[in-house]
């Protein structure tokens, strides 16, 4: 007996919300970035679940593209983090407030 898709969707919703709350609560830039990855994975799980429920390969194609974009995003994001940390060591997200005015 297969698990109904609603269970997968519920699990993905919980995963997404955990990632979102973590992004809002944590101050370490690297951990915030990991929370973004959690949210991306929740969305991927949702897409694969809908691909199974609606019997449509398009959902899995979207997940493929999301994986590529996530890889590019991590490369650029970690480059930015390295650049920030080179300038000032031990900075948290609260310290990077030059644009605050």
């Amino acid at each position: 007996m297969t698990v109904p898709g609603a269970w997968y969707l519920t699990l993905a919703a919980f995963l997404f919300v955990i990632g979102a709350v973590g992004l809002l609560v944590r101050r370490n830039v690297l951990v915030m970035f990991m929370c973004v990855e959690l949210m991306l994975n929740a969305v991927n799980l949702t897409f694969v679940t809908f691909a199974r429920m609606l019997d449509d390969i398009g959902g899995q194609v979207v997940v493929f593209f999301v994986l590529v974009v996530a890889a590019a995003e991590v490369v650029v994001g970690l480059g930015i983090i390295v650049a920030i940390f080179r300038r000032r060591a031990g900075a948290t997200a609260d310290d990077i407030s030059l644009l605050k005015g």
Partner: protein
Amino acid sequence: MDWAVFIVAAAVILTGALGVVTSRNPVHAALSLVLTLFGVAVLFVAQQAHFLAVVQVIVYAGAIVVLFLFVIMLLGVDQAEDLEVDPLVGQRPAAIGVGIAGLAAILLPILFGKWQWLSGQPSVVGPAHSGTEPNVNRLATAIFTRYLLPFEATSVLLVIAVVGAVVLARRPLSSERLGETVREEP
């Protein structure tokens, strides 16, 4: 059997996700992230998305988490963060309230069986599972025919990402450091 796989994978996913959010040390958070990514890969296999499960393990657990660990190692930012201090008064309760509201907004259509509100109409790209053709073949057919242009666009995106990473990581020339006062020579 399916339920056992789902329950174990769900427990692994949620444990890892909570570990990412609550662990004080960034290295522990990265290792918890690996746990979550493996759990999601297991659920991909359980839903016959075999190619995506393999890519998930190779790209996410293999490349992205290792990149995270490399950055942690290079920068030496693995000191524990004090989670007790609330930098902005009332930020944490507000964040948790926003999270509960968002969870309710996503969950209510699912629990009342109206998940079509979230997915829209079934599209006509092609069946995912019917017949005996493997999932990899179906995915490749879709990517290289109907989605060929987005697939080519991702190559441009990756080139831009590589160039951007090189530009960001490059040590700035001395003539470009005008007006930088806080910078110290490493």
